[in-house]
Each structure stands twice: as structure tokens, then as C-alpha cells.
């Protein structure tokens, strides 16, 4: 189906993976911020045109599931959606090792869009830190 669209309505600026993530984003949603098993990271600023909210639900030190919401361009939406997929099932330490270059490579982001992947990396780290902070304050 995507190939049909690409043929008849060329949209050459984006890689088809980025388009796919916009058309069918994975893990869009919200958890209750006050829930103890949830870590929330909000990064970016509306003035910059990019705000990502990434939330993780953690059990036994592992990220069971993750959701996101993003105000930003298609590359930002794709980066944050892919980030939630990547970190699902990982331990917190592994998630902290997520590099923006992994996201950028998978989505074939051009240089001008690399900052979207960096913001997604920041969002993941912010979510993990938030969870860890909550766990300590128990």
C-alpha cells in the first residue's frame, strides 16, 4: 500500500519508515504520572517546536511497556515512537545506554533532523531518572 502511495504521490523528503511511524504510530498513550511504577520524561519546549513526553512502566527493574506523546515534526514523532519500541523489555541500565545514533540510523534521519533523535534519547533518560527518583523517595 505504501508503495502505491509512493508511486502516485511522491513524498521524497521522508524515509518510508518515518512515514510509517506517522501513519501508524506505536505506543501512543499516557499513564498516570503519580503511579509508583511509572517514570515520566518531558523534554523540549513549544518555543522550539519539539516537545516529547515519554513514559515507562517498570516492574522488577525491567521496562514492561512504554508510551509517548509528541508535539513535533514527523521525524520527532517517529523518533519517540521508535524509542518506546526499542526500550520495551530492557533493563533500566540498558535503556540509559540508548544512543540517538541508533534511532537516527534506523529511521535514516537526514542531518537536519538529528536533533529529533537526540531529544528522544533525552526523553528516555528523563523517564528512567524520574522513575529512579520516585523509587528512592519511597
Amino acid at each position: 500500500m505504501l508503495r502505491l502511495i509512493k508511486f502516485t504521490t511522491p513524498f521524497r523528503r521522508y524515509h518510508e519508515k518515518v512515514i510509517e511511524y506517522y501513519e501508524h504510530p506505536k505506543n501512543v498513550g499516557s499513564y498516570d504520572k503519580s503511579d509508583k511504577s511509572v517514570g515520566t520524561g518531558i523534554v523540549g519546549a513549544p518555543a522550539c517546536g519539539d516537545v516529547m513526553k515519554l513514559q515507562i512502566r517498570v516492574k522488577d527493574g525491567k521496562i514492561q511497556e512504554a508510551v509517548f506523546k509528541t508535539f513535533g515534526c514527523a521525524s520527532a514523532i517517529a523518533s519517540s515512537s521508535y524509542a518506546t519500541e526499542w526500550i520495551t523489555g530492557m533493563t533500566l541500565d540498558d535503556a540509559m545506554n540508548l544512543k540517538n545514533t541508533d534511532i537516527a540510523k534506523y529511521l535514516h534521519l537526514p542531518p537536519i533532523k538529528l536533533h529529533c533523535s537526540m531529544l528522544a534519547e533525552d526523553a528516555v533518560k528523563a523517564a528512567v531518572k524520574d522513575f529512579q527518583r520516585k523509587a528512592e523517595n519511597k
Partner: protein
Amino acid sequence: MLKVISRLLSSLAVKEEIVGRSSYMDFQATTPLDPRVLDEMMPYLTYEYGNPHSRTHAYGWNTEKAVEKARKQVADILKCDSKEIVFTSGATESNNTALKGVAKFNLQKGKSKIITVQTEHKCILDTCRHLQEEGFEVVYLPVDKHGLIDLELLDKTIDEKTSIVSIMTANNEIGTIQPVAEIGKICRNKKVLFHTDAAQAIGKINMDVNAMNIDLLSLSSHKLYGPKGIGALYVRRKPRVRLNPLINGGGQERGLRSGTLAPALAVGLGAACEIASIELQSDTDHITQLAKKFYKVIIEKVPDVILNGHPVHRLCGNLNLSFAYVEGESLIMALKHLALSSGSACTSASLEPSYVLRAIGVSEDLAHTSLRIGIGRFTTEAEIDYAIELVEKHVKKLRELSPLWEMVQEGVDLQNIQWSQPK
């Protein structure tokens, strides 16, 4: 048999089939060539290939006749004399010629100040920046929240050192139309030359260079259903406006713009001007009706939509809308069946949001959410209905993806949040 099965399967799998091209709704960026204009141009792209400056044979005489007819057609839409029209390669060249030419000529009279506006087209702003580097003083007047300049401030700013005032008639991004006649009057009283970039206004509003006291005017062919690659500069002869030419050579166009004219392009521009003056009212009615419908229905169906630019004094075919909490580039990508542009940072080469939106005071977060819809002569009601349906659907979808929308629904005041700075 296999073909039948595969067709059946693909018809089951495909939810939406897109055939053809996206619907063009970016008429401020450029316009398609009107078929009637192409008809006029055809002889000069085929058998009438003479150089219009060739004096010695019919090849040249024929094309020269056509060019002079085109010149008259351009002069008629401005209500001036055809001797006052200089053909150029486009509005950018016309703007450069007007500003640099007048600034350099008037330097000998001790005038070195140029007044312009913050919302001008980049070709004016960049030319002014270049002139500043050469030692000229340039004042960039601010605009109000609708994009209009303050006439009193303009009056106060003009002094004996002012060489030229350059203020565009209609803005390409937000559509605001400046009070050109009043500006012309102020400049005439103060004996200062008034130049206006009318690229977006010609063919959409009635222009009269004498009634409006305009001394120099730039226009662009491809904004009024003419061919790309040609424009014109109106240079007043009574009283004579003197300027240094930008391009030297054989002395064509009264020495103001040397170079062989392209008869086909000139004829195209002339024909486009004639059609535009005849159809100005019918075009305006058609476009206004479509624009009003689009705006009215969108406002009803989609909350938190803001119109940028003046609500009344604006180009009928321009709708610059900010959809709060939805980022502009993602919206344009979602609306891939429509050809639009945005004032958002991501769609400009730098990551800065539109300077025009910033000049009218649109907050940075709203500047990232804007969309420019341009409606024109060939837009149909079906396209508008389709556009409304798509915009409503995708704005809703993107708001569901947006953390800002979620926060607003929860009652959070976005102005009071400490956002993290990107590293």
C-alpha cells in the same frame, strides 16, 4: 486468474487509493500558467524567434511589436504609460534594481537612508542588509499584530536624508494589505520616493500608480498565472525617477536593464495582466467565497484555530492559520494530499520559525503550528471540501498525539511550565 486474485487482494488491502497529484493550495508560492496565456505565448516559442532588438528584418519587427503590446498590457493594469515599464527577470530583480539603483543614485544628493518594514520579502530585506554593509542606513519599521505599519511612525521616520521608502502592498505569508494610497501620500508630501513590491497584489486588488502616488513598483509574472522567469519594474517618468542600472550592456529598456528580452515570456506576462484585469472581480468573488467557506467551517469544527494577519485588509486567497498544539510540519506531512506551506521552523532551511509571524507578535510556540493555505483562480469547491475534511481529521489525530493538547485538557497552564532546554 492470478491477476484477478492479486487485484482482489490489493483492493482488500488498500484502504485509500491516491491517484494523481496532491491538490494545489499554495497559490502564494506560485500559480499555474493560465492556458490562455500559453496560447498567446506559443508563436514566440516556435516560429516567431526573432530578437526583438533586431532592427533590420521582419523577424525582429514582429517580436518587437509583440513585446510592445505586452508592455502596454502591463502598463494598463497599473494605469500608467508603457514607457514606464521595464521588463526584468522577476520581482527579485525588480526589487534589487529599485533599491540599489535609487540608493546609489541618490547618494550624490546626500541621501543615504532607506526605510522599509520588518515583514518584507527576503529579497528586499537581504538587499537592504547588503546596502547596510555598504554604509547606508536602513530603518526596519515594526508592524502591529495584524501586520500593518504605523503611518504616524512612518511620517516621523522620514527625514531629509531619506532616499527611498519600500513597503510591500500585500504580504505573501499573512496576506495583510498595507494602506498603500496613504503611504504614497505621506511620501509625496515629504518628497521621498515610494517603492512597493506588489508581486502578490497585482491582479487581486486594483492598482493605480498615480492615484496611489507610487514611484516604483515591482511585479512578478508567476504570481498572476503567467510564466516564470519574468517580471516588471514600473519607474515613474513624471517626475522622472533616476536610478543606477544593475545590469549594464546594450542599453535595452531605456538603459535600465540591458539584455535581450524574451518575447515569449514578455507576451505571457502581458497576457496574464490583461486577463487579470478583466477577471479581477470574478476571480475575487470566486476566491473569497471559497476562502470564507473554508475558514467558517474549520472554525466551527476545530477548536483553537487562529487566523494570522489582518481579518479584513487581506488577500482574499490567503489563509494563514495557526492550529494550536499541533506542529506545522507534521500537519503538512499528514495533509500530503494537499500542497501547502507552513510558517514552522522545520520547513524553512534554518530551524527558525517564520520572521513574519514573529514580527506580528505570534508567540514562538504558535509560530510552529501555522499553515498557509493559498486559494486561486483554479481552486474548486470540491477541493475546498476535501481540504476541510482532511484538515479536521488530521488536526484531531495530531492533537491526540500531542502532549500539549493533553496538558491543556487537564487544565495545565502551558505558559507557566518550566520546559527543559534541548542540549
